[in-house]
């Protein structure tokens, strides 16, 4: 069974976001062109396989969390919405907590394997319902988008995979979240020390987008 378009879209989106981010000081037209070109190159075959096929063969399809992170980054880069570049701290913390609890157990540290719950039952749906409540309560719209996309991909069997975990999270996500939280911490502390209580530079769910822009929140 060849890869589906939706599986292919994951690596294309990530590479487009990276290309646009690398050129974020260039004019918008250049950034947009670079993003489109990068996405096309990922899907174009070189020899017997494309870069997307290498990516999918090595890492598999991307989770909804990665799609949200890359999508948000791409949107911010293309729309000059620099402040909306990062996911909310709430989403980052959720990714770190889930990753820290989930992956070590799947690795054989104990006889208990939480990955089994992704195939059937209410455990993982209850977890994502809790995430919906967290997203709603903490005004983290990106969490709501994350869950919505994961649910739609799972229900539509977009990856031909019946394990709900794989639509929700991949190991990239908690690793990225740890890095993003760590990167934001010194700036956050400095700002608090220098200016007292202020806007958290990575807490963009409460940030106002620039005039005329309504980003993916």
């Amino acid at each position, binding site marked *: 069974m060849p890869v589906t378009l939706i599986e292919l879209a994951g690596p294309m989106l990530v590479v487009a976001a990276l290309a646009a981010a690398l050129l974020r000081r260039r004019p918008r037209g250049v950034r947009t062109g670079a993003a489109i070109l990068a996405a096309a190159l990922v899907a174009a075959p070189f020899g017997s396989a494309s870069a997307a096929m290498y990516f999918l063969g090595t890492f*598999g399809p991307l989770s909804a969390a990665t799609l949200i992170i890359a999508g948000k980054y791409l949107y911010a880069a293309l729309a000059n919405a620099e402040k909306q570049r990062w996911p909310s701290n709430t989403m980052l913390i959720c990714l770190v907590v889930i990753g820290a609890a989930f992956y070590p157990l799947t690795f*054989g540290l104990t006889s208990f394997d939480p990955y089994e719950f992704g195939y059937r039952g209410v455990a993982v749906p209850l977890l994502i319902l809790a995430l919906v409540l967290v997203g709603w309560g903490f005004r983290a719209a990106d969490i709501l988008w994350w869950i919505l996309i994961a649910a739609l991909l799972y*229900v539509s069997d977009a990856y031909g995979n019946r394990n709900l975990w794989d639509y929700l999270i991949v190991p990239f996500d908690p690793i990225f979240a740890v890095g993003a939280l760590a990167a934001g911490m010194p700036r956050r502390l400095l700002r608090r020390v220098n200016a007292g209580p202020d806007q958290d530079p990575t807490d963009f769910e409460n940030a106002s987008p620039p005039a005329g822009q309504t980003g993916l929140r």
Partner: protein
Amino acid sequence: MRRHVLAVTAAVATLLTGFVSVRSPEWPTAFGAPEPAAACTGKSVFEVAPAHDARPLFAHAVSAVMLRDGRLRAVWYQGARELSPDVRIWTATFDGMRWSEARPVIGPAEATAGSGRFVGKVGNPLIFRNSRGELVLLFASLGKIGGWSGVSLKATHSRDEGETWSAPRQLTTAAIFNMATNVRGPAVPADGGGFTLVPTYHEFGKNFPELVLLDDDDRVVGKRRIGISHMGLQPFILVTDRRHALAFMRARDGYTLLSRTADAGDSWTAPVQTSEANSDVPVVVTRIGQELLMITSRFDQAASRWALVFAVSRDGITWRDLALRPFGSGPQDVVKYPWLLAGADGLYHVLFSVVYGRGGSQLMHARFSRDWIADQDGVPCQ
């Protein structure tokens, strides 16, 4: 307001997800009926002949299935060496007299083109018949770099007894980049049809055996961990009745491991060591009367060569060696990876590799009757 609408939409999608999740296939409540043991034929037979001489190439990890016309179809991987990019999955049939010419079934290029995911190397194949009557071939696939820890599984099926095969499909079996799941032991049908239980094992960091539930569309719909103690791998599942089975595992160093299930593989006892020494080699086991027959391999000190080992047990824990059959020409030639099945001819067929120290390997084919086991002071003919 927009946040509330989004939250409600996400909650509805979550409820839909829960609905789909609880309606996903349940773990089977029973195994399919175990294959009947071969009966005594009145003639003690033990014959060994090469099935395929790959030298100077390396052929290994043979798996086989009975075809509808009584022939036996074997599959294995073959190339310059293990994990070499030129390794492909090969097949041949045995008609009761001789083996057909071996031919390749699939290699990295075909696996890449068919699955849409890059495959740099292929490895262990496993062949079985699903409840639709199609042959299913699972095989290990890997990227360009790295060893077995990067392995994942692909599945292809055949509606013409293995003459042609469908485009392979990726199986998702592991949480971390779908890595480190490999196969060796034979698959077990689930009761009622539609599903097959495939013994697998985790090969990254800590080894442990698992059981994957596969539907007839080659989709993984469930998974159970057999046990993490003693780091067993390459589980061989022996079904003893509808709900009970034994899992025997290869051990890195020490003794063959045993775990039991009483609920069709839904849960397993912690693996324990049996009395049968294991030098990091897989085992195969079948029931003969009230006893178990194990075939494995180890270095025979007396013959100073590697040997195929036949052993019997009543409880699966305490084993008694019946016979050791040495192969190769010296201590560097290693015997391993037996595959056992009962043939239409009333004989047991064992396929295994002899890996030569000078390079290359040979697939061997041993045939023996139930009477031969009795003659070795094994389970008497009734």
